[in-house]
């Protein structure tokens, strides 16, 4: 059947696939694959002798082995050679095989750059398309840096065929995802997008252009707004006219995906103000919204394609909200209602999702009539919560949540609490969270709020996160009238002999804090309160027990009659193996021996919490980098960039200061140590290049300018640098320019860094270049440590010791330094000063104390200012050796500081 017209010259591959398919067990398959790998390895050892047919065959076999899930560690070079071949058939095999075997590996991608580049500039449309396909699918930093210019050239070339341009625009999009400066909006619009969208015979090109636009224009809608009327005209032709080639008709629907994409692009902009455009758009939308009215779909495919467009049009109408007329909004509601009531699961799902969006919009814009229309179908939504399909249940739950407001909050929360009894496991946490948010949001009736949350804890305790009951405590503490009610409610909840861990926690806290309301109201005795908590002591976890001890300490202060019981418990835990518990027990025990005034000072009732820490405020508090600070540093460095290595005017190289080699130190560690505490210096040097760096830091941001100098007498080309940040240290690197290093010339690249939280690990930089056809790779560390973002602070020694003790030794990091002794203390002081640790020497010159704060760009939600992390350093010296200790509230800050100080002192 197949072979009748599909040419298959790969007989060897066919046989191998048959062999593998014949294997009954995984072991058999492994044996067969290993045998084949050994064979291919042997053949490739002498690849030049192989015939073209064999090279292709073995490449396919490797691809097949890779697809089976086995590791393929060799053969990449042979595959790349196939792609570089002049023969089209070999080139095809090479590119397809590379696309599978190489994945997104940046190191391997680097090796293909030359091949791709020569194919892109070649006149062969076939080779160009293969190169564009590969580049588009792989993307990544390496290809973006090396090939952007070539890809754009093909894209803008007037002679490029539509099929080439179609690939080129998506390839440019792929590279744009890495570097958003790549595409110039006005050039792209005038050369590619507008001419493409004005025609309707090459719809594939239209699809690719719209796909590109929906991403690039989203990043900067204003720059691309000239395309808006063109997209509307295109949509008009497709939706209203008949001018679309039949090959682009899908089951009777004209290019559904073009319609979908066009509507997506329109959604990036507001409802047009221009009367003519507005009229056309309304006309199009009306037509799309009524597409299912008059005809009965011929097939499922036709109806799906129509509905795909319909859903996108509905999204657009919902986005416009009040700006469209009432009639159209009613039509949308009618369609969604029809969707929700249909038996087709997919359509029902989309109906629920659409209605949820509609409800959110109506809530936002206060469209009561729309909300009422949705609420009329409350019953249908409620039923969908029990649908057998989990995807539909999830959508229904979202809709229940979105349609809730003051008027129906009690009803909906009640239904959701009821639903909690039968909800499937994977939706349970979500349901609990939604109930909690709703009753927090509409919590005018506080007893209702308290009851609901306590009910959630009792029935679904495992799904109640910590912050949920913390919020309950907060609300109760802040509202005088709720305290007695909450105490009574939680007392009742504590009665069963076995309750959920979270119940014990919240019970201990609330009874300890507000239990006195019950005693004063003569509802319970002090002994009852104690017993209610203490009956759960045996099975509670240690963290919970710690909270129980705290509650006891509070109670015993008010009710001395409990003294005996409480002392018994405290005494039992004084030798607990859990350090936290032991500490608390000892402290409370000791406090109980003190006078009452002091005890009362310690056990003051909790003050009210600041309101800003509510549920929604907590959810929105996210790290927030401040680009302004980066820019400020940028500007400063730009003005004073200088030719660091003095390569330009001097013919001879100034060699890096030959580091003093002690203790078997590698030179690059010495270079790094120097650069870590100097504003500029040499980071690396070998017989090819010298890499220098100039650093500037301001608060949580920094700017590094790297200079890569070519020491050799020949050209080093394809120079690249890669540096990737992480969530603690954000890194934005500019490409190395120029990428070709002339003899005795230098290139530079800049790197902007922002510290979001303290970190201990260094970030690597990879520099690579080609020398005489050989690739050279250099790995060095980015000379940025947690102390780069430090700002020193100093206080008197006594003050220091107090803070030092307050931190406790749990967050301490220590290390001995064998080569730094008392005799070099002055040099140590100088180094620590350079590290911004503000060292002060004690009177006996044996102890160094330093304090600093690490600046981060993460905004502290409590203060609204960037968070800072304090670090304390203490170094004690004796003759010949010393020891270093660091304390900080954050472990990464402590470890980062310790390793940096250690590294820097290594070169002393």
């Amino acid at each position: 059947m197949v072979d009748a017209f599909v040419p298959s010259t790969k007989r060897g591959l066919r046989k191998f696939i048959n062999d593998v398919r014949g294997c009954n067990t995984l072991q058999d398959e492994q044996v067969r694959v290993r045998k084949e790998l050994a064979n291919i390895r042997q053949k490739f050892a002498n690849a030049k002798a192989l015939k073209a047919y064999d090279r292709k065959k073995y490449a396919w076999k490797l691809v097949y082995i890779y697809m089976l899930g086995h590791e393929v560690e060799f053969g990449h070079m042979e595959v790349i050679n196939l792609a570089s071949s002049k023969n089209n058939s070999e080139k095809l095999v090479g590119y397809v095989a590379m696309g599978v075997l190489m994945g997104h590996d940046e190191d391997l991608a680097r090796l293909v750059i030359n091949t791709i580049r020569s194919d892109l500039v070649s006149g062969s449309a076939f080779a160009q398309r293969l190169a564009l396909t590969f580049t588009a699918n792989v993307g990544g930093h390496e290809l973006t840096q090396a090939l952007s210019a070539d890809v754009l050239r093909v894209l803008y070339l007037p002679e490029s065929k539509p099929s080439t341009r179609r690939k080129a625009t998506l390839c440019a999009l792929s590279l744009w995802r890495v570097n958003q400066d790549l595409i110039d909006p006005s050039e792209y619009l005038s050369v590619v997008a507008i001419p493409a969208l004005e025609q309707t015979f090459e719809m594939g090109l239209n699809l690719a252009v719209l796909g590109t636009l929906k991403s690039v224009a989203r990043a900067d809608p204003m720059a691309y707004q000239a395309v808006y009327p063109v997209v509307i005209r295109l949509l008009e032709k497709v939706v209203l006219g008949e001018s679309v080639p039949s090959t682009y008709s899908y089951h009777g629907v004209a290019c559904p995906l073009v319609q979908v994409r066009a509507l997506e692009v329109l959604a990036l902009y507001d409802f047009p103000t221009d009367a003519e455009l507005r009229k056309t758009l309304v006309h199009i939308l009306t037509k799309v919204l009524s597409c299912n009215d008059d005809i009965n779909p011929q097939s499922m495919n036709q109806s799906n394609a129509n509905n795909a467009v319909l859903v996108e049009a509905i999204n657009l109408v919902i986005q416009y909200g009040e700006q469209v007329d009432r009639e159209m909004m009613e039509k949308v509601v009618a369609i969604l209602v029809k969707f929700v009531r249909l038996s087709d699961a997919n359509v029902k799902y989309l109906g629920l999702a659409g209605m949820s969006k509609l409800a959110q919009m109506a809530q936002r814009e206060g469209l009561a009539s729309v909300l009422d229309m949705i609420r009329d179908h409350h019953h249908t939504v409620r039923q969908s919560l029990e649908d057998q399909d989990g995807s539909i249940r999830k959508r229904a739950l979202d809709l229940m949540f979105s349609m809730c407001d003051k008027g129906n909050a009690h009803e909906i929360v009640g239904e959701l609490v009821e639903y909690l009894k039968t909800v499937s496991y994977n939706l349970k946490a979500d349901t609990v969270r939604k109930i909690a948010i709703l009753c927090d949001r509409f919590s005018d009736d506080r007893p209702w709020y308290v009851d609901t949350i306590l009910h959630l804890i009792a029935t679904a305790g495992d799904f109640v996160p910590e912050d949920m009951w913390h919020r309950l405590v907060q609300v109760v503490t802040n509202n005088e009238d709720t305290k007695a009610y909450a105490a009574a409610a939680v007392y009742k909840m504590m009665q069963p002999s076995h309750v959920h861990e979270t119940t014990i926690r919240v019970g201990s806290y609330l009874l300890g804090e507000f239990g006195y309301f019950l005693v004063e109201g003569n509802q319970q005795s002090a002994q009852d309160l104690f017993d209610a908590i203490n009956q759960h002591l045996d099975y509670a976890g240690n963290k919970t027990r710690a909270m129980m001890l705290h509650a006891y300490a509070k109670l015993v202060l008010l009710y001395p009659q409990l003294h005996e019981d409480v002392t018994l418990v405290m005494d039992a835990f004084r030798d607990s193996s859990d350090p936290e518990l032991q500490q608390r027990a000892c402290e409370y025990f000791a406090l109980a021996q003190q006078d009452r005034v002091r005890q009362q000072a310690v056990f003051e009732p909790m003050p009210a919490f600041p309101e800003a820490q509510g549920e929604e405020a907590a959810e929105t508090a996210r790290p927030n980098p401040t680009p302004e600070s980066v820019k400020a540093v940028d500007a400063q460095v730009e003005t004073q960039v200088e030719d660091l290595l003095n390569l330009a005017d001097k013919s001879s190289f100034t060699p890096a200061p030959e580091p003093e080699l002690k203790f078997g130190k590698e030179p690059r560690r010495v270079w790094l140590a120097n650069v870590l505490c100097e504003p500029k210096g040499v980071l690396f040097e070998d017989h090819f290049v010298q890499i220098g760096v100039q650093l500037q830091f301001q608060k949580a941001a920094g700017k590094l300018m790297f200079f890569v100098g070519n020491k050799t007498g020949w050209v080093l080309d394809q120079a690249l640098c890669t540096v990737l940040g992480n969530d603690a240290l954000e890194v934005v690197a500019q490409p190395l320019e120029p990428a070709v290093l002339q003899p005795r010339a230098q290139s530079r690249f800049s790197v902007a860094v922002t510290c979001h939280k303290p970190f201990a690990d260094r970030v690597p930089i990879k520099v690579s270049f080609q020398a005489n056809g050989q690739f050279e790779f250099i790995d060095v560390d980015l000379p940025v440590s947690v102390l780069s973002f430090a700002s020193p602070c100093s206080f008197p020694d006594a003050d220091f010791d107090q803070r030092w003790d307050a931190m406790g030794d749990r967050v301490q990091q220590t290390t001995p330094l064998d080569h730094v002794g008392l005799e070099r203390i002055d040099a140590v002081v100088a180094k620590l000063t350079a590290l911004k640790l503000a060292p002060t020497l004690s009177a006996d010159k044996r102890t160094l104390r330093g304090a600093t704060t690490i600046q981060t760009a993460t905004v502290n939600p409590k203060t609204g200012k960037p968070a800072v992390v304090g670090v304390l350093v203490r170094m004690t010296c004796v003759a010949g050796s010393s020891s270093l200790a660091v304390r900080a509230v954050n472990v990464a800050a402590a470890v980062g500081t310790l390793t940096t100080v250690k590294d820097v002192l290594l070169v002393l």
Partner: protein
Amino acid sequence: MACPIANMCGCRLWLKPEGCRMIRFILLQNRQGKTRLSKWYVPFNASEKFKIESEIHRAVVTRDPRNTNFLEYRSYKIIYRRYAGMFFIFCVDMNDNELGILELIHLFVEVLDGYFGNVCELDLVFHFDKVYRILDELLLAGEVSETSTSKIIAIMKSVDKMD
């Protein structure tokens, strides 16, 4: 700048989450969970790929045929279609057009059908190279690139002549 979705997908590209409405990857699996073909448009490492493949198989194979063809998976959406013993699975972003992708899958199968003539699982096994090439015409960089069945088949045949 780190990609905000990086934490989940290991993707090193800087993409604004609301901006990426793209196909993340494609799996062609049979009922036994054997992945016949996969195409990844964002980087995942090998162990992550393996984990995703088996998680998705378990999630999809147990679903009732009357259920939706959509499944929320991690922070993505899986859209799948079953043809005989084969599952065609596309992983897209949460806010993508579900039915559009569902019919895109069907279009892909129509192209395979038109090219191979009554396509079956064995065609995908023995002619994986052709399937990759068809896929590269249909999709590129996680975006749809060509939807004309006749044009894709014409390109395929013109290239086949070189072989």
